């Protein structure tokens, strides 16, 4: 059982009063989560006491910074059930997916090979494959969603899988909150010898991810949606896959030798981590997973699900509101997308903001999904560990008031 009051006390921003005098109610967690004080402190402590570049000098601070960077890698990879040597720091899930595209697929897929993605992917898991298709002539197949259940059409997935080399699918939709049957998807893909990339940007804050047990080839994660800082994430992969990868970005740190005749590259994750590492961010992320580790991820999911299901059910009772997704499904995450039939989504978001409620509006970087849903945008309230039923009560009251007054 989570002690939400105590959890909220860890997040100083939750006491924020907005310029209009309203207390902040933060329901934009699928975009980014807030950061607990321990993460802020860990990053400040680095800059205040041992800021130095990592891996590059023979002095005390450099040694401390290097150790902290690698300790964070161990903490984070351990949290996700992966080997530290197979964890590649990236700027986030987007760069992790691009790394698979440029570092693995470009070297291992040929003209005519098939990549299967879905209509509910974030642009980060669509555009890299479209670009690869232009460059290499690979075919990109899109698995549709069922517009009534908002779930993936698994029969279509089975058909799309025929002759495919790589499946790229989101763990949880950032728009619908729907959790995909990734275990089944991985199993079906493996049966036909297909590699699998799971975009875990939305899944990682909501459930325990065990990379080794899942059996995927690649897993992309962003720190900032799970209490960590912005600007860092990782790609988790296997020893076999990492050996098949070639450099993506090149420069310092990733080389063994550089001569005027050419360069040789380091092995393992070092080959993909060129330039000065994101040291403070890695330390902050390490502190975030340590903070999260005090809880059971199942408890976090239950709490978030309970709030999202309650919000979704109550919102649906408000005349004019339509929900996209199925927040009542036990696997659904905390994202609840909705629209009002006469109040335009941008207007609705601004009016909610007047009450202090931070929700997201737009296509959520998922335009193919918007096309499938037949709407240009949605409003999205997304909940996390520190949100409360009382906040949702206030939100529902304000939403009802807006709908009555402005429709």
């Amino acid at each position, binding site marked *: 059982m989570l002690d939400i009051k105590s959890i909220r006390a860890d997040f100083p921003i939750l006491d924020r009063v907005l310029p*209009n005098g309203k207390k902040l109610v933060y329901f934009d967690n699928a975009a980014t989560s807030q950061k607990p004080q321990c993460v802020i402190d860990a990053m400040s402590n680095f800059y205040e006491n041992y800021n130095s570049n990592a891996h590059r000098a023979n002095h005390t601070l450099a040694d401390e910074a290097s150790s902290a960077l690698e300790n964070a890698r161990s903490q984070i990879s351990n949290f996700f059930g992966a080997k530290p040597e197979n964890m590649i720091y990236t700027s986030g899930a987007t760069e992790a997916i691009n790394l698979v595209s440029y570092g693995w697929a470009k070297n291992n897929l040929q003209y005519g090979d098939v990549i299967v993605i879905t209509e509910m992917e974030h642009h980060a898991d669509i555009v890299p494959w479209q670009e690869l298709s232009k460059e290499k002539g690979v075919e990109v197949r899109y698995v549709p969603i069922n517009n009534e259940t908002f779930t993936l059409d698994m029969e279509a997935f089975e058909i799309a899988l025929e002759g495919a080399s790589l499946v790229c699918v989101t763990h949880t939709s950032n728009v619908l909150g729907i959790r995909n049957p990734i275990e089944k998807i991985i199993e079906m893909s493996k049966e036909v010898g297909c590699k699998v990339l799971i975009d875990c940007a939305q899944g990682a804050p909501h459930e325990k991810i065990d990379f080794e047990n899942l059996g995927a080839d690649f897993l992309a994660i962003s720190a900032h949606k799970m209490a960590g800082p912005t600007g860092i994430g990782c790609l988790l992969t296997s020893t076999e896959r990492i050996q098949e990868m070639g450099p993506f970005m090149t420069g310092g740190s990733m080389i063994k030798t550089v001569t005027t005749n050419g360069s040789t590259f380091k092995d393992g994750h070092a080959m993909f981590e060129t330039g000065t590492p994101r040291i403070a961010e890695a330390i902050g992320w390490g502190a975030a997973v340590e903070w999260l580790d005090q809880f059971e991820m199942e408890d976090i999911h239950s709490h978030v699900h309970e709030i999202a299901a309650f919000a979704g059910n109550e919102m649906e009772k408000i005349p004019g509101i339509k929900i996209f997704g199925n927040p009542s499904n036990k696997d659904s995450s905390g994202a609840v997308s909705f629209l009002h039939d006469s*109040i*335009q*989504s*941008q*207007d609705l978001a*601004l*009016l909610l*903001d*007047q009450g202090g409620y931070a929700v997201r*509006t*737009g*296509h959520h970087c998922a335009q193919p999904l918007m096309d499938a849903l037949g709407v*240009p*945008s949605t409003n999205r309230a997304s909940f996390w560990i520190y949100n409360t039923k009382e906040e949702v009560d206030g939100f529902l009251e304000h939403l009802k*008031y807006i709908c009555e*007054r*402005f429709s």
Partner: protein
Amino acid sequence: MSSLWPEHIDDIVEEFRDCFDSMERYELLFEYAKKNPNPLLEEDWTEENQILGCQSRAHVICSLDEKGLFILKSGADAQIVQGLMSITSIAVNGLNPTEVSNLTPAYIEEMGLKAALSPNRANGFLNMFNRVIKEAKILSET
């Protein structure tokens, strides 16, 4: 024209300033959205007159009447943007294009709608306003 905005919108600015709170202000803005003096009908919304960088759909056409005075036609699917553009139309229609090109969005701020002017917000009014000023400059030079 006063130093900051045309005098004939003083009453509108006052009306907004007198609102009890921001929700009342937005309610009034929704009413102004319906009072657009020169609506640009949806069938006339084209890529050419679309405002880029705006998540809602917003379109403007700027022209001069036979006396060389400014006419702003606008259309938006978001009522808040449309309300702001209606008031802007009331402000600029009938001015000469040089006067329009010197206009600033100070009246919006004075009306208590500063949030609408943030370039970080996706509502697009500022993009629309800047487009009107740019077109007014071009029209004043022709």
